[in-house]
């Protein structure tokens, strides 16, 4: 494989974890709710997936359980936020800290190890082998990818269709800017928000499961390592639109992939590891500047 193909392949391998979570962030952003808890949901998702896969020997069941579990956590978030009126930032921080601690604790309790847990009995996610692509330059990057890569891409399309073509999508889009308008139109905003948060949890669960069963087949402490926050940045980058968010995720994954490859070529790792974060900050700054300029122009013309 040449350099380009390798970077592309790495990008694609890194993509799903962030993409799932950023879709989860995107839908909560649509209801004007900053869900900083993406990180915690993902981490717990990653752990649950590994544990269930280890005990049952089935990646399928592992993913299913993870999605349900994280969906319930998203629902809990909703209950705390909507019913008990807790501040969403506080809940998010609580979830992130809780996730960090509880995964450590259960790793020790269930498997008697600290730091990292891996075992041959953990069954990873299946890969889609497309042997005929092997010989085609560039496209050969697609020849041996996890099915979750395709699932993630598919979900981008699904999210787009749901948001812009369906009833619930319209309601979600309207809830963010003016929940009162939705309420007076006879739609229960409370239930809608519960659903959105639950689905957001489920998507993060998928991201976590991919991380521990797709990208690797192990669980390590804090293995999400800020991916939840990167996912949030991506959904911001995309203005909470699915296609834009996909490009944001692609950009971040790409810079991550470049980092990984560059390390192999002997660049100082401390320096090069900053790259993804620098890219994140820079893109957000540039985006903000572009937005402001657009606004100014709009005013001068209007």
């Amino acid at each position, binding site marked *: 494989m040449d350099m380009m193909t390798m970077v592309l392949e790495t990008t694609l391998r890194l993509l799903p974890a962030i993409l799932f979570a950023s879709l989860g962030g995107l839908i909560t952003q649509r209801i004007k709710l900053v869900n900083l808890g993406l990180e915690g949901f993902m981490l717990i998702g990653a752990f649950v997936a590994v544990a269930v896969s280890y005990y049952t020997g089935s990646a399928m069941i592992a993913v299913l359980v993870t999605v349900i579990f994280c969906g319930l956590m998203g629902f809990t978030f909703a209950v705390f936020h909507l019913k008990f009126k807790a501040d969403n930032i506080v809940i998010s921080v609580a979830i992130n800290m809780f996730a960090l601690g509880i995964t450590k604790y259960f790793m020790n309790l269930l498997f008697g190890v600290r730091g990292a847990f891996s075992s041959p009995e953990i069954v990873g996610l299946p890969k889609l082998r497309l042997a005929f692509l092997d010989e085609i330059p560039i496209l050969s990057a697609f020849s041996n990818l996890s099915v979750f890569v395709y699932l993630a891409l598919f979900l981008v399309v699904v999210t787009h269709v749901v948001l812009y*073509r*369906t*009833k*619930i999508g*319209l*309601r979600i*889009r*309207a809830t*963010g*800017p*003016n929940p*009162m*308008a*939705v309420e*007076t*139109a*006879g*739609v229960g905003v409370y239930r809608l928000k519960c659903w959105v948060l639950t689905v957001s949890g489920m998507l993060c669960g998928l991201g976590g499961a991919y991380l521990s069963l797709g990208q690797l087949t192990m669980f390590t402490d804090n293995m999400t390592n800020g991916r939840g926050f990167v996912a949030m940045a991506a959904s911001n980058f995309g203005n909470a639109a699915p296609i834009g968010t996909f490009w944001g995720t692609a950009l971040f994954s790409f810079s991550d992939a470049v980092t990984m490859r560059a390390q192999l070529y002997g660049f100082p790792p401390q320096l090069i590891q900053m790259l993804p974060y620098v890219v994140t900050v820079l893109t957000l700054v540039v985006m903000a500047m572009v937005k*402001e300029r657009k*606004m*100014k122009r709009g*005013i001068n013309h209007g």
Partner: protein
Amino acid sequence: MGLAIEMIDICKEFPGTLANDHVSIQVAKGSVMCLVGENGAGKSTLMNILYGLLRPDFGEIRINGKTVEFHSSLDALNEKIGMVHQHFMLVEEISVLENIILGREPGKSQFIDYEQARKEIEDLMEKNGMPIPLDALVGDLPVGMQQKVEIIKVLYRGADILILDEPTAVLTPQETDELFNNIERISAMGKTFVFITHKLDEVIRVSDFIIVMRRGKVVGQVKTKDTNKYALAEQMVGKEIPPIRDREEKNGEKVIRLSNVNCHDHKGRKLLKNINLSIHQGEIVGVAGISGNGQQALAQTISGQLLSNSGEITYFGEDFTKVKRRERLLKGISYMPADRKKEGLCMEWSVAENSIAGYHILHQFVKKIGCLHFINESQMNENAIKMIERFDIRTPSHRTKVSALSGGNQQKVVIARETFVQKPKLLIAAEPTRGVDIGAISFIHNYIMDLRNEDTAGLLISSDLDEIFALSDTIVVLFEGEIVCHVKASEISKEELGLYMAGSKRQENEYES
């Protein structure tokens, strides 16, 4: 024709007040009924009960002869009752079409049938003669158009009874005319309208039947053709309204002069463009315009809260361009902000504390101990007590929090503070009577007129054109931060003013002053 709405013996009590006290009303099908009354008379409570937002403690509602019980606005919608709220329930970020179908989207599955939606709404718009661009974002439309979206939205939901809550508060006279024509046309098709307002001219014009409420009770039910606006006003207030004070001829010296003043906010948005304006002693300049066209910036530029970016301001011949609010206040520029709850008052403070806020730096309110300055509480309280008496502020005591006062009394606290402690040379009054009952309106109008007759210069900003005409000597119209019209109040009609307000007309030659 039969009765569309019957509300029988409705009672609703809130802690401390009986908002609806055995209220009974009847509205015939296909008619336009106006519900008038002062703020706090119980109109909104009654309509919220009819729309299912509140539940009555007692009483019965019948719609088309059938007894109903509403638990939410959804139940009301199902009985074909729709409401156009004073603050529109629209989502600015999505299209007109999507706003209209929101909550009642056509399509069998989860997918929205946009084709069908478009067809249905276009039919509806044609039938009711209200064309709206369906693909525009609601936020890009003018207010009058947004209101049409609201009406179509209600009709789309199949409403036969439409409740309009203060629908003309935000409209220009032309838009109001159009609204009334639409109401006439739609009611001729058999729809029933309930119209809440306190503008009596409009009531007389649009309604078939009027119900007057005062202090939670129905005090009058009349056919429109049997009454006039003076009789209605008397019924609303329960006493005769004193006429506004006479205007004395004045020819005073120039108090403030703005030349070529420009102002923009931190994002570079133009708030004011090339403002040229002078105000003389004993002159009230009324600023008309649809809210959001630079009124607040103009008031703040003169009060000194906002410093202009270019141009010159002189005050009694002195250069005041860079002088800050505090000094302007001490030199006699008083400012009553439009939003009394956020800017005019500190809601959690007592009447006494509010009565000197801003003026607490005056020597009589300061007690010096060594080099430390404290507030002289006895002076503060004494001042507040005098103020309460002079302005007839209805409050249990001067220690009461202003949040416990009615809107009218809160506004009296503001006007008292701005004019009583220190007599202003220039009074900026922004929306001085918004959300204030008729009794207090008359008091405030007369008081402002008295100040004018005693040589105070006035800048009156108001979205109520009647108020502008009642008080102003000179009228300017602000449109997108520019003065597009500057005339003597006696030389312009309301209709013409409306054209300037909507931006469809512009004065060619500048007014000399």
